[in-house]
């Protein structure tokens, strides 16, 4: 039973990684920049169009809608304080999971690369310093 659960879990993880790699490839083919450019559109009544990375003003009472533009992708709507205080108003966008899989792929590849370099360096350090140690002994 446990083995089955394990296999299912491992398979789904592998599938997820595959999907993320695919989305990374697709992103690389398109013109999608890695860094996101975020703009903020506030309520029309406030007549205050702000261009900041995120909604930072926690005192904003009007419902503000943060639109995240990641290149050619669909915009992301963010939940802000104003909305939150009105009650359960969480903006659920399941498609963002697949869209952002590229960060998962890039992150995991990046971390394995850096750790790989560190491992090689430690092995090298060990080898370079070993003879000196023997002499000292």
């Amino acid at each position, binding site marked *: 039973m*446990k*083995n089955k*659960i*394990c296999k299912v*879990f*491992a398979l789904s*993880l592998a599938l997820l990684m595959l999907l993320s790699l695919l989305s990374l490839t697709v992103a690389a083919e398109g013109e999608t920049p*890695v*860094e*996101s450019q*975020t703009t903020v559109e506030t309520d029309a009544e406030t007549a205050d169009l702000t261009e900041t*990375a*995120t*909604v*930072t003003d*926690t005192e904003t009472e009007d419902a503000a809608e*943060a639109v995240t533009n*990641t290149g050619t992708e669909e915009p*992301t*709507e*963010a*939940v*802000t*304080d104003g909305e*939150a*205080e009105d009650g359960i*108003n*969480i*903006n*659920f*966008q*399941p498609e*963002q*999971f697949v*869209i*952002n*899989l590229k*960060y*998962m792929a890039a*992150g*995991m590849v*990046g*971390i*394995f*690369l*850096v*750790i*790989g*370099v*560190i*491992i090689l*360096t*430690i*092995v090298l*350090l*060990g080898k370079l*310093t*070993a003879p*000196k*140690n023997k002499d000292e002994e």
Partner: protein
Amino acid sequence: MNFLSEFLALLEGLIPKGFDPRQLAMWLIGGILIFLAIKKEMEPTLLLPIGFGAILVNLPVIGDLPALQELYEAGIATELFPLILFIGIGAMIDFGPLLSNPKLMIFGAAAQFGIFFTLCMASMFFDLKDAASIAIIGAADGPTAIVVADKLKSQYMSAIMVAAYSYMALVPLIQPPVIKLLTTKKERLIRMPYQQKDVTKTTRILFPIVITVIAGIAAPSSVELVGFLMFGNLIRECGVLDSLSETAQKVLANLVTIFLGISIATTMRYDQFLKWQTLLILGLGLVAFIVDTAGGVLFAKLLNVFLPKDKKINPMIGAAGISAFPMSGRIVHKMGLKEDPQNFLLMHSIGVNVSGQIASVIAGGLILSFFG
């Protein structure tokens, strides 16, 4: 009727100005954190100041508490406290087990999977910068979480902090069921003989310097975090600064921890904390810890497919790749002993755990380079 309205007006006069019933809820939350810290000994050094601070900042006083606000601005907004704390942590860590078996570091990388998985999960509910700040809860590393959330200017700082530190304290409860679910008894019984390898003093001294240089080149955003951690370790390993090393490990770390806890609590005002998003963040934090653990264990199982029979790895050590040091390493060791009293996994699991500390900081740096 007239009497009743007069009575109610009288009662209303007794209620202090600036009082909100939600403040009562925050006192309760503060009380629970204090209870967990004292009675259950869950990260008492942080949960106790945070709990007390949560009560303090939610008292019906008019206006802000300037001293606390100053402390927050000076220590958290500038990221000074978490970075200084990293010097203490670096001075506490012995990288010996890792240096004698560097291959174990690969599990530290695998166990960061939860961070990036949670990033995708959180992006379904939050904008990318907040999602990234929430995902870093999976680093199981409070200071890294503070630095990343602060640099990304997350509006959910307090919830992220509380989740990060609470789950670190709950590692003994979260990890064992996940490990057991993903491994068979036969796998848990795998013995891994430990061969003691001497690590030269030169290696120990060069290690923090080299790691800082690599991190600076490969993930520049992580250089502050890695730099402070490794500086602390260099003080420890150089052998000529024993008193500084001791100060960093004890006095400095304790002092910063006191201020860090109470400063974090300044963000726990009822109007900022009591949101549905807070519950969601707590849930996502739990997902991050579970997937981190699963990532490490499953990666070890994957490696076992390719390894010869006599060189199989006990997949439980993969779970120690999260940064909760030394708790995670000890849990794996205890689980190994429970299955087989002669199976000593401590050195392996601590080696993996230490590598998780480095990997989580690098993961934080990568997150910052993506969204910073």
